[in-house]
């Protein structure tokens, strides 16, 4: 009986009707994201999805997260996960550790995305040093195949400041969608600063 009760509760959580309205993010106005000091100034309007993907995360989109997914992570501390747990017992999400190096981040993101977004394949296609939030950071690109059989491309830009992770990530279908808004994501990255 208890198992059924839990399943019912889980069904309620994923019911579409339970979602709250999504917020319009205005263009050309600075906005802080992911319950942190991370701030960006978008040049186009975006939608902020009302349900947070993780406690230190925020999701923006234009057509829904399956078609263009912009994720912000701010002040992720040691022991935090990037996303909400999907199934803590069987597939726990990896935890961030403050002693991680920038080069460890692609693997950390891969493990997190495989569990949280159900990517069946994940290939890192490039990793290079970059400047992010005025610090040395890492930029990497990747390709995924989702459980919906759709090939996607992604970019992540990240840095670690005082043992806390700051990251912006963009993922969209390889067909049309990724290229269409890649420049909009790069503009968000270029505008990022600590508020």
């Amino acid at each position, binding site marked *: *009986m*208890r198992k*059924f*009760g839990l*399943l*019912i*509760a889980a*069904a*309620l959580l994923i*019911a*579409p*009707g*339970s*979602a709250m*309205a*999504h*917020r*319009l993010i205005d263009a050309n106005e600075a906005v802080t994201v992911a319950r942190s000091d991370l701030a960006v100034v978008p040049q186009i*309007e*975006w*939608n902020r999805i009302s349900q947070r993907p993780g406690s230190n995360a925020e999701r923006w*989109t*234009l*057509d*829904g997260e*399956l*078609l263009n997914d912009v994720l912000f992570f701010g002040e992720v501390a040691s022991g935090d996960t990037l996303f909400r747990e999907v199934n803590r017992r069987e597939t726990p999400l990896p935890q961030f550790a403050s002693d991680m190096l920038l080069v460890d981040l692609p693997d950390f993101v891969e493990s997190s995305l495989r569990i949280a977004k159900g990517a069946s394949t994940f290939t890192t296609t490039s990793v290079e040093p970059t400047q992010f939030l005025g610090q040395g950071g890492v930029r990497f690109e990747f390709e995924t195949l989702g459980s*919906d*059989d*759709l*090939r996607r491309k992604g970019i992540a830009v990240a840095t670690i400041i005082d043992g806390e992770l700051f990251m912006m990530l963009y993922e969209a*279908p*390889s*067909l*049309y*969608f990724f290229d*269409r808004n890649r420049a909009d994501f790069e503009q968000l990255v270029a505008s990022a600063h600590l508020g």
Partner: protein
Amino acid sequence: MTKFLTILGAAACLSLAAPAAAQERGAVRHDFDATQVQGDARILVFRPRIRVGEQSTGGMFEPRADWTELARDNLGNALDAYQVRYGSTLVEAPEAFGEDARIVEDYMALFSTVAESIVSYQFFPGNRLETKKADNRNEVFDWTLGPGVKDLPGAENADYALFVNTEDHYGSTGRKVLQVFAAMGGVSVTSGRHAGFAALVDLETGNILWVNADMQMGGDVREVDGAQRRVEQLFEDFPLVPAAAAGE
């Protein structure tokens, strides 16, 4: 425990009733003129993507090859009958091999994901994305697969493409038992998923001009009659006038 479930159920009914009632199932692009597709227009029809399987108690999908085969025959026959009704306007897409076949598969997957996004973020008005509302907050339907649809095999000889996808998850016994228990607690747990998507796509821009999309369509696709019902539902409000009617 029973009391808890009852309260949970009552809350669920209240939170689900309004959006479910308000859900839309079809749309036409705001600037689409249906007269464009009559007459000499050529609509390329791609072989539908059909998936049928069982839904486990926990909601996982387990494909069933035998059911998929049945559905493919039944839906194929029902669609053929429709195609005859519309005459030479509907043209079967050429058989694709190698790279061409991969492009078709990729677009089928993209179409399915775009259709799901339309259901989530357009057809539930309470969940609609703000940027999809435009200034008047109404009547704007702007979804696309992108202009790369020009690369689809056969696209060079056609003006539009017709995509059809169906995905049916029939509830296992365990899932049905869960549904009964949940109903006792006043909670609605769906047993099965019966998604059907059909769309007319502009082969120049990739824009979706007309779409029917529903995550709970009627008709058991494993049965001849059910497949016919499904196809009728998929083509409800299809903007093309049947050849016989057009000739009258």
